[in-house]
């Protein structure tokens, strides 16, 4: 039995219309002849939502209790017994009361999908685990019910329900989100323009990242060797024209100059920058070294560069491997100290790198520059 299709409606906040849109699409599927049921719906006493649910079959809820208080929950066995083509299940971040099959509703949904039933569901962006802190910092409101980000990754489709902050506040004022007595409190706390604008940006970025990661997964899956040679050439063509910089660094202050130069070059070329430290095997990262690694990591983060740490006893071999893996086209190295003793007999690093890396990869040495002329 194949897994059901999973579609998630993602919103920046309550009231943007996720559930409404889910029901609309549920109706469209039913009109197209599919067997659609509501597995669980939380209309929040919103008239528009309740009206939109009319005409769709609802799987009756079951009763459960939390500390002797009776609550109504989705009847997972009931949905599975009913076996529709598509189940609409609201609020995937919900936490179930103890004693039910799973702790969280997204786990219930996984069972439904595993039974071959398609699922439409909803979630707000602040419920995603990785964004929880960020959203709490932005809005000073922390939600307790979180879901792993991977849940979003398991969806076949993520639909962002977007609404401008002004339009959402208008809906709130019109009583379309919360009942009258709660409107002012909501406006005073969570539903501020700056909060909603920030949340909207976070949601848009989240979906953009999801699209990008799916594109990458697709592209990697497509790379598994059944393609004809000409397809491979065509698929690899964009890589060939793209530049990618790799700067060889060490966790020490003098590497910062190299990072600065490399970053400037990357900016000019409009390309990505990787920083690579080839760490000698077994070298413990502690004390001053740890401090410098942290500083390098922070600098990479400020610049949007990627810091790679490879443990290897052969610098050139490690660099060559990373160059191949990352598709680097430029390698930047710092000026090294004059060799002493037997090291003088050894071929210089740039030449060794040129030989070990694929043809077409340039090696650039960043010289130490003193005070610029005219600068005093």
């Amino acid at each position: 039995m194949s897994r059901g299709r999973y579609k998630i409606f993602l919103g920046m906040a309550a009231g943007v219309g996720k559930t409404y849109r889910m029901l609309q699409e549920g109706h469209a599927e039913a009109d197209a002849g599919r067997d659609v049921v509501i597995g669980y719906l939380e209309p929040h006493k919103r008239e528009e939502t309740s009206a939109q649910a009319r005409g769709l079959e609802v799987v009756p809820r079951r009763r459960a209790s939390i500390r002797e208080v009776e609550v109504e929950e989705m009847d997972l066995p009931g949905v599975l017994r009913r076996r529709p083509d598509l189940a609409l299940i609201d609020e995937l971040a919900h936490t179930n009361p103890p004693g039910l099959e799973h702790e969280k509703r997204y786990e219930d949904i996984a069972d439904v999908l595993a039974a071959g039933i398609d699922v439409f569901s909803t979630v707000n962006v602040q419920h995603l685990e990785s964004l929880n802190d960020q959203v709490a910092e932005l809005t000073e409101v922390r939600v307790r019910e979180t879901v792993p980000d991977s849940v979003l990754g398991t969806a076949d489709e993520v639909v962002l329900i977007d609404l401008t902050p002004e339009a959402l506040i208008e809906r709130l004022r019109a009583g379309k989100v919360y009942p009258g007595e709660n409107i002012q409190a909501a406006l005073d706390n969570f539903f501020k323009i700056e909060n909603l604008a920030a949340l909207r940006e976070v949601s848009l970025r989240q979906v953009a990242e999801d699209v990008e990661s799916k594109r990458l997964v697709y592209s990697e899956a497509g790379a598994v060797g059944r393609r004809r040679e000409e397809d491979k050439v065509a698929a690899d063509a964009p890589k060939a024209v793209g530049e990618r910089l790799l700067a060889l660094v060490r966790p020490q202050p003098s590497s910062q100059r190299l990072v600065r130069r490399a970053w400037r070059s990357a900016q000019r070329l409009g390309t990505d920058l990787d920083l690579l430290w080839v760490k000698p095997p077994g070298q413990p990262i502690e004390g001053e070294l740890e401090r410098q690694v942290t500083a390098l990591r922070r600098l990479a983060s400020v610049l949007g560069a990627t810091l790679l740490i490879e443990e290897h006893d052969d610098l050139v071999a490690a660099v060559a491997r990373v160059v191949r893996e990352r598709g680097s086209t430029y390698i930047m190295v710092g000026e090294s100290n004059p060799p002493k003793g037997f090291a003088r007999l050894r071929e210089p690093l740039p030449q060794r790198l040129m030989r070990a890396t694929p043809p077409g990869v340039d090696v650039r040495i960043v010289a130490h520059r003193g005070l610029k002329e005219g600068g005093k």
Partner: protein
Amino acid sequence: MIEHFLVGLALILGLALGFLFARRHRGGAGGTEAVHHILLPFTGTEISRRAIDAALRLARAEGATLMPAYLAQVPKQLPLDCAIPKEADSAMAMLEAIEQRASSQGVPVDARIERGRTYRHALARLLDHETFDRVVVSATATGASGFSGDDLVWLLEKAPAEVLILRPGPADHRVLSVNGRGRLS
């Protein structure tokens, strides 16, 4: 045989005592602890030359490393740890110029860029995870320093190090500024 052993022992003892004596002399100039890092926080695209020169003088005299730290503000709607290429561009030019100046005076530099919601927040984050022995800030009100009087009071209270606040002076119009290139003016 016993004489050889005694001569060897005397040599080892002599070397050990000599090593200890030299170490004590190196670390104990005037009986004070050596200063290792001097923090020079700044914001925006210019920094008082007096502040840089004071920090460099101190660093040279004490054999310390200068830690210029560019403080960047991250807008509320962006994650605090996001990349900040525009700010980084200014920071890079400033740090490059400071490093060149330090290099000409033989002072080692270990630069930082720190992000925060406000300059004070960035400074607080820096204080949290870096160790240094002195902080040099300029009280010159060029308008670009980014530190208010309150910030300086806060720094005096919070910094786990000596804080050197340079009083305003007639040469404060001389700043190291960047117009994209890190030029001294």
